[in-house]
């Protein structure tokens, strides 16, 4: 953890309230995000218990699986979820704008510009916590290989029509969430944790209620710290948490004392209904079943609604911050990602494979590393508070220009190489030939470290962005008295090397994937444990 983050945490402890960790908002927020608050069943991986989902904070849709082990009910839940999520996602696939992309021409092998569609906006999904992101990924994996009766009439347990498609979208969102700085799928705890520092550990910050209590304590609370403690621990007379966990896991006390008995009542009512011998008896027992189901729905609603409200409260807080200058650019990359997935689905491509092949994995890792470096640089450039952290770490310095001496490079056409002396109280880690960069109208200008003239005096030689002439263009060289800020990290990232196509995977990495897995992938086989 960086020194400035530690300092902010210490200040938060002393003040009893969260301290800002950013002065601008570093992630894109949609005007109409889809909030998804899922709950899962304890001890059953991938068995949803229910969810609140929707784009209207006052009217969330409640989905419940009254018996989470019943696969038909689970499919019904997923089908309902698809009916809410897919129309939302698809509402963004139609509106496009024209854009250019460089592609390799298959015939000439040259890089050419191609006119393509780019979705004008993209769907954004917000979940309460990081565990929610994992749950989205898990749901995606459990759905995308399912076959519908239409795709395969022979399949023993056909999935409802749109469920595999939802699985593909959720998988895409889950994968995209791993790209640093992306905003298609965001966890509220991560969002708040990025913009505020609390007086608790990052692990404790995963509790949405506690995190919000630090940032925005209720008016009657003596301090954020006490409100956070209350959010974590306070229970009512029945032993239930006043602030239920943000999920998807539920509190064991809730599972044992409320949920398990309710599910048991539901199971009994169902068995009784199945055993009903005549119409009037069945009617009466159906009434009992409906009542039992309504009870479970009420329980799930009572555990998800506080989290739902907390997520929207978090969105309110974040929207008070102005967006960082580079947020839009990163969102455009998200739109490219969204458009790309839309096109793959339209083209009838198969679902994402269970495992990446060697080339895909390497490409993903390279992209994420590049995006991480880009994000680190852009956040610092967008936000003086983030830059302060980099300055404190010796990775940047700011100060006043004390002197500018014009010199020229040697050679046939001498180019300007002005020597700039900067007075700074920062302690940058400058060494021989270290390059530094500053933002000049949004473009990076490079300079070389020349010498440390005094403890607080750094001499730099500006080397580019001064035009082609012998005299530097106006405004391209700092002047005496200017405030400047140089970074030791680069502002823009170079593209990585082009990797071979997957079908040309070399021998060192096992050769082309087709040679190993000639059989197309099937979903996991059913085992005895699957059917309870």
């Amino acid at each position, binding site marked *: 953890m960086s020194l400035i983050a530690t300092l902010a945490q210490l200040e938060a402890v002393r003040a009893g309230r969260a301290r800002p960790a950013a002065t601008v908002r570093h992630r894109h927020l949609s005007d109409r995000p889809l909030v998804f608050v899922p709950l899962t069943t304890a001890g059953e991986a991938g068995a949803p218990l229910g969810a609140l989902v929707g784009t209207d904070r006052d009217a969330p849709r409640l989905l419940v699986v009254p018996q989470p082990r019943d696969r038909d009910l689970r499919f019904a839940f997923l089908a309902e979820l698809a009916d809410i999520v897919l129309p939302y996602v698809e509402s963004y696939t139609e509106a496009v704008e024209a854009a250019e992309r460089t592609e390799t021409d298959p015939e000439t092998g040259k890089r050419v510009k191609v006119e393509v569609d780019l979705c004008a906006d993209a769907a954004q999904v917000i979940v309460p916590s990081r565990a929610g992101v994992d749950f989205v990924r898990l749901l995606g994996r459990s759905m995308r290989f399912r076959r519908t009766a239409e795709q395969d009439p022979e399949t023993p347990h056909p999935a409802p029509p749109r469920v595999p498609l939802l699985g593909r979208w959720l998988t895409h969102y889950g994968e995209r969430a791993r790209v640093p700085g992306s905003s298609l799928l965001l966890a509220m705890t991560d969002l708040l944790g990025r913009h505020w520092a609390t007086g608790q550990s990052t692990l404790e910050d995963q509790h949405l209620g506690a995190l919000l209590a630090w940032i925005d304590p209720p008016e009657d609370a003596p301090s954020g710290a006490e409100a956070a403690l209350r959010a974590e621990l306070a229970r009512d007379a029945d032993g239930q948490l006043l602030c239920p966990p943000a999920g998807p896991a539920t509190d064991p006390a809730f599972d044992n004392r409320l949920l398990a008995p309710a599910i048991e009542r539901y199971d009994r009512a169902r068995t009784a209904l199945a055993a009903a011998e005549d119409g009037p008896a069945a009617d009466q027992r159906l009434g009992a079943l409906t009542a039992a189901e309504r009870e479970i729905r009420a329980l799930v609603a009572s555990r998800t609604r506080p989290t739902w409200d907390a997520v929207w409260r978090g969105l309110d807080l974040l929207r008070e911050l102005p967006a960082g200058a580079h947020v839009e650019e990163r969102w455009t990359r998200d739109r490219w990602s969204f458009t790309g997935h839309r096109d793959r689905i339209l083209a009838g491509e198969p679902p994402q494979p269970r495992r990446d*092949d060697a080339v895909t994995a390497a490409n993903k890792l390279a992209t994420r590393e590049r995006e991480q470096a880009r994000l680190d640089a852009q956040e610092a450039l967008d936000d003086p508070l983030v830059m302060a952290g980099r300055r404190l770490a010796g990775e940047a310095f700011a100060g006043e220009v004390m002197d500018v001496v014009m010199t020229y490079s040697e050679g046939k056409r001498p180019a300007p190489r002005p020597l700039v002396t900067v007075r700074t109280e920062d302690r940058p880690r400058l060494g021989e030939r270290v390059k530094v960069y500053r933002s000049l109208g949004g473009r990076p200008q490079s300079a070389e470290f020349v010498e440390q003239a005094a403890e607080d005096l750094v001499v730099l030689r500006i080397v580019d962005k001064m035009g082609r002439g012998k005299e530097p263009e106006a405004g391209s060289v700092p002047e005496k008295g200017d405030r400047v800020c140089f970074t030791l990290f680069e502002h823009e990232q170079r593209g990585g090397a*082009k990797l071979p196509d997957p079908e040309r995977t070399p021998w060192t*990495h096992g050769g082309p994937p087709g040679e190993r897995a000639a059989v197309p992938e099937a979903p996991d086989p059913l085992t005895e444990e699957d059917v309870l």
Partner: protein
Amino acid sequence: MTTEAVPRTDAGAAFDPGAEAARATAAILHDTLHGTERGVVVDSPPGAGKSTLVVRAALELAAAGRPLMVVAQTNAQVDDLVLRLAEQSPELPVGRLHSSDADPYDKALDALDNVRKSAKAADLAGLPVVLSTAAKWAHVTVDEPWRHAIVDEAYQMRSDALLAVAGLFERALFVGDPGQLDPFAIVGSEQWAGLSYDPSASAVTTLLAHNPGLPQHRLPVSWRLPASAAPLVSDAFYPFTPFRSGTGPGDRALSFAVPSDGSGPDRVIDEAAASGWGLLELPAGHTPRTDPEAVGAVAAVVRRLLDRDGTAVSERSGPAPLTPARIAVGTAHRDQAAAVRAALAGLGVTGVTVDTANRLQGREYDVTVVLHPLSGRPDATAFHLETGRLCVLASRHRHACVVVCRAGVDALLDDYPSTEPVQLGTTVKFPDGWEANHAVLAHLARHRVTWRP
């Protein structure tokens, strides 16, 4: 019939390092030049003549008329290989493929007539040997692959970097030190853990997972490490592939003209000069990373090493003065290195190398002063426990190594056993950092000098 005394090669016989190393080298070159497999892997402990092997293999492949590309990981490594090649064979035409940045290669290369330098691979076509970094090679495309490649520091190369260049060659010799720092990614890569081609794993891990039958060799002798250091480094970091030092206990000596003044730094210097190791132990305490007392102690030891007018005697040369260029300071973090540099400048010391473990890989000095990665820490993270980090820091010296550390690291290790999640399908690396750290500490405890600055 008379019986003749036949030389026996069982364990009791004297170990002849020169002969052992020559035998290993011959086998490697045979497999490289005449083997049928597409790859040969060579594990080399610290200072075992890896670069010498690479240069020799390159020359023999060139002599056999096989076009060769050499892949190293950093520009400094490439330039170093070019210089060594030119030294061994001044007539051999060599290509140095470099980036299009400013100052892409060592200026010393300009003085060599047989070295052609270019940023375009096409300009170097037809030369018997072309050298570059993995990053630069990744941008090269060829119609016809090279017959042969040598991949240097292959254990420090990431799997995805090998993926980008493996299409350029038909066969390759992979050389590296498995005990040094593993490559790392700046983002999480747990998603691919356990896959044979995990892009964040080392190139050799992926290569061997897909080609388990490749011949694997190892160099058995460290020419750098003194007799006092090789057993410890071998036991702690290479428990299943032991190696020996090329020199015996009496072959090297470090002495000082100025006698000890009885201070902590002087006592630990004398201990290290006599035994090869010294531990300067400061009082226990939790400190910031740039612990001013520990940094000051490191600087004081370096200052006294220079003030006391040291002389190093080795099998390579007669008595040689211990100059700043022959001393290095190793740290775990860059801010620690910066703090030590500042402290040294304050004591008027210049010319001593101060760097992190990552940057000291592959380098060699007479005496090293190491700030222990766990000194003063309240916790032992995976970063600080990494076996390779300690191995690099403890294996850069030809004569002596002084470790500066706060007391209590052994207790810290016991409080923080390794808790990294176990990933299915990944090869468990031995030894783990926890065990290696304990082994080194136990050895250093015998050479401890306690000091309160």
